[in-house]
């Protein structure tokens, strides 16, 4: 078993609460996405308002489905701090790991967990959407957006959290939540863009996700140069 696979497995065992929260959030996202189907049409298109709930609610659900991936992968971020403090990372460096190898291992683990939950969320959402009669094009859009936003959020969150935890001087990893908050950056526009800029929502959400993804990958690739090895020591 490779390092990232072992990290993923350890994360699952570390805290089941986050996984339950992730699954619940994806159920909530699915409900939000399909809610309009059970609301009478005359309530959805209120006269005098520019908000088109029928088309915007499913788009807004992208943020909840993406957030579920961030929650699901959170134990990986906790595990990094844990391993740094117990000297596991120091030992890995002694066996020939580079900083990049270490960071890449945690990023792969968190991304894999995110992909597992995003797959579950999208299968659930698409199945219920088809049952409720949601437009297939809209369901496909949600799948693309959820993967783009969810993965970019998880990548940015994991990389930022590891960077913040590495650079902080105290051992406890108290800066960890900062990384998680940063991981929310691509998720929040998905919640509001559909309501504020309905015509450009898709472009805005996709653009932010792609930029976030590129920044995260760039930071990861540069981690060996930006973060000295000693920052992984307890």
């Amino acid at each position: 078993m490779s390092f990232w696979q072992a990290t993923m497995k350890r994360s699952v065992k570390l805290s089941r609460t986050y996984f339950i929260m992730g699954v619940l959030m994806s159920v909530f996202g699915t409900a939000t996405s399909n809610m309009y189907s059970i609301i009478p049409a005359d309530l959805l298109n209120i006269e005098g308002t520019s908000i088109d709930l029928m088309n915007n609610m499913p788009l807004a659900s992208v943020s909840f489905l993406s957030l579920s991936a961030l929650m699901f992968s959170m134990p990986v971020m906790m595990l990094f701090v844990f391993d740094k403090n117990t000297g596991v990372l120091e030992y890995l460096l002694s066996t020939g790991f580079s900083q990049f190898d270490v960071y890449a291992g945690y990023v792969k683990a968190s991304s894999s967990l995110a992909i597992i939950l995003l797959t579950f969320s999208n299968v659930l959402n698409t199945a219920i959407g088809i049952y409720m009669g949601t437009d297939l094009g809209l369901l496909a859009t949600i799948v693309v957006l959820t993967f783009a936003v969810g993965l970019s959020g998880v990548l940015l969150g994991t990389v930022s959290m590891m960077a913040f935890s590495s650079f902080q001087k105290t051992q406890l990893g108290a800066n960890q939540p900062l990384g998680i908050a940063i991981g929310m950056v691509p998720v929040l526009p998905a919640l509001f863009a559909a309501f504020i800029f309905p015509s450009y929502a898709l472009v805005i959400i996709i653009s932010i996700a792609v930029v976030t993804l590129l920044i995260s990958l760039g930071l990861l690739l540069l981690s060996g140069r930006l973060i000295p090895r000693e920052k992984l020591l307890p």
Partner: protein
Amino acid sequence: MQKLEISEISAGYGGKEVIHKIDLKIAEPAIYIVLGPNGAGKTTLFRTIGGILKPFSGRITLDNTDLFNSKEARKRIAYLSHLSALPEEMTVFNALKYYADMEGGDVEHSLELLSVSDLKDRKLSSLSQGQKKRVSIGKIFLSERELYILDEPTSNVDPKISKEIRDIIIKLSKDKFVLYSSHNLYEAREIGTYLILIKNGELKFFDKMENVKIKQYRVGIKALNDISNLLPESEFDNGYYVVTVDNPTAVAKIINDLVHSGAGLTEVRELDNPLQEFFEGE
């Protein structure tokens, strides 16, 4: 392994140099005791040799292969930090398997060697510090290495386990190179073949333990009779006649004289460890 060569190594953290231009050549399988006061730079030296810290300057080679840049050379080294470095949420067996999966090795062999087979299904978080230490040591014996870097391997373990660990390391040192740091001076003298003294990040002494020269020897003597008149200059302290001399030959002569005078000796002991003075001010 034939030779570990440390050439003019300087290293530290965040640009701050902790060890300065250390030069060492190690070419004989043995236990090399690394001593020095707290903050002297022992752990920094170990981390640099172990490939964890990149040296600011200088070079470390293992049989002429640069240690920091060669993953193959690093696989010939085992590094034990003073922390457990174990995934604490795992069981003992799974924790060792976690490393064995990445580096290769035999988990059962390590469990038996460190006498922790009976703990293999216990969670690491439920173990005592001493038990964790044994498991932690177990991970460096998963596969055979040539150079063992051991940072305080017997700290936090009881005397019985401490002796067992020392015995394993002594056996190991017959054909392996062992760098061993300890704060236990008696242990250092007992097992060390060579002494490496680090102070303020500089190498102050490197020679065979038997060549360690000290300023004075304090010997405590217990006898059935009053022997004060048989000793050169002595004081009576805590039941011992205490004699201070400047060389071990003088100690031998005193003991010899006492035996021949029928003093009825019951105990002779060294009161200070000769290595103690290395921890005192410069």
